[in-house]
């Protein structure tokens, strides 16, 4: 087994040592269902799809994903175990990817836990299962992008609280990038091309079609590049901050 797999295994198992993981999954399931049925008017719409379910994912991930990612490196820094980990004969990438993939797999598990809602819609009507599958994959990719941001923020600080706030804020900026709130701020003094670029960074813009079940290549590229980019930033932060 490679170093990556060993680290992945340890990290993944560490979620289930304490009740935190179970509480997290429970909260995720309760909130995602509550949003779907009450705010999303799942029944009232009378349509056999999961759009009301997926529509809320960016907002749900905004605070739930940082809650998962905040401990990734902060805890290691705080306890000093980062010194142990990084003096083992492994590469920095193996450590970063092992941790990230474990967190991502944990997020995937929470997502899989929502399957009853799929069963519900399948029972009530005849949904497009392919579209739902696509939305699930897209949602998981978005969770990965948020996790990568959180991973980087966690590498910055010993404090999990600070890591949580920084990641939540950064994720919020990306969620809101396409909204007038952000765009109006830039409008008029940045070139139109720049404005388009900022709007193009919007998580919502890329997730809207995904939540409808359309998994477009550009959206996939967007989320995958977000993950890669933020993991590179994580590496950079770890190298810069290891001097502290």
């Amino acid at each position, binding site marked *: *087994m490679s*170093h990556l797999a*060993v*680290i992945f295994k*340890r990290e993944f*198992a*560490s979620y289930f*040592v*304490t009740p935190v993981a179970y509480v997290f999954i429970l909260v995720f399931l309760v909130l995602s269902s509550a949003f779907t049925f009450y705010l999303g008017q799942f029944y009232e719409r009378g349509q056999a799809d999961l759009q009301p379910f997926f529509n809320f994912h960016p907002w749900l991930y905004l605070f739930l994903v940082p809650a998962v990612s905040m401990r990734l490196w902060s805890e290691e820094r705080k*306890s*000093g*175990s980062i*010194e*142990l980990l*990084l*003096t*083992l*004969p*492994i*590469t920095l990438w193996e450590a970063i990817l092992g941790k990230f993939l474990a967190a991502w797999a944990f997020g995937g598990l929470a997502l899989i836990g929502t399957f009853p809602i799929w069963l519900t819609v399948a029972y009530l009507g005849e949904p497009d299962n392919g579209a739902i599958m696509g939305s699930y994959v897209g949602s998981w990719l978005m969770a990965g992008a948020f996790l990568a941001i959180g991973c980087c923020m966690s590498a910055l600080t010993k404090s999990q609280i600070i890591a949580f706030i920084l990641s939540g804020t950064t994720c919020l900026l990306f969620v809101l990038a396409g909204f007038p709130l952000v765009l109006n701020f830039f409008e008029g003094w940045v070139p139109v091309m720049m404005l388009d670029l900022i709007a193009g960074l919007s998580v919502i813009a890329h997730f809207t079609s995904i939540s409808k079940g359309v998994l477009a290549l550009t959206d996939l590229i967007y989320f995958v590049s977000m993950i890669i980019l933020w993991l590179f930033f994580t590496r950079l932060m770890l*190298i810069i901050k*290891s*001097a502290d």
Partner: protein
Amino acid sequence: MIQVNQLTKQFGGAAVVKDLSFEVAAGAVLGFLGPNGAGKSTTMKMLTGFLAPSSGSAKINGFDIQSERQAAQAEIGYLPEGAPCYEEMTVYRFLHFIAEIRGFRGREIAHSIDRVLERVSLNAVLDQRIETLSKGFKRRVGLAQALIHDPRVLILDEPTDGLDPNQKHQVREMIRSLSDEKIVIISTHILEEVSAVCSRAMIINKGEIVMDNTPEALAELAPEHESISLMIQDLDPQEVASALSLLPESDRVVLDPDGRVTVFPKSIGSPLLGAVQSLVAAHEWRVVSMVQHRGQLDAVFRAATEGGAG
């Protein structure tokens, strides 16, 4: 063999470690001594590849810690300061994890854990979570993970810090019991530890080596080394002092208020003791006590690091 060449680390412009150069051969137990903030930990962090040096290099058994980091790290067992580990894991799972990372597979993992448990007694707490253990046990877990791959180089940052005297003794026994082919580097500010386990002591102050020798040779540098204290019954200590100061081997004589007279030799290995004994016999002094002192490291340490970084 560890070769350190002009190793330097700067933090925000201030050099914490300056131009450190030394070599350690197999079989040596090297003690890093120095006041807090002297650069001991920083040096160890660079030797283990956790920190990148600002300049200079270090080679562990021929592997450069920067360009061949993983190969060098595979040679090293490292106990970071405070023995950090994954506290939510049980001792067994933790050692299992380290063994896997260190490249053991299948049955080798159990073997490596068994072997390390012979050295470090942890059997009683194997299935307990590390966070529930006492400080002494936690330190042992840290030592066990450092030893699991039977490394040729062992770097231990304050291995006995915070332990009770019995636990300190155990850790020292273990360090002494390690095979002769290994290199052990320990950092400490407990001077007795150096005399107890080290074959070589290096005093570091403000990032520089100020002394480097065997603990015995360093202790000989202490001014009190081979000095002799005398207490004579029914006699004015002043008289004793003046008689002693006339000895050709005597450098100076110090009179304590409690009547104890201490005479310091002119040079190490001088026949001062014989001369004092002859003097006692000639005057038929009744000796209450006569002690020849051995030099203590702490006097040397203080002299070498006075005005150090606190």
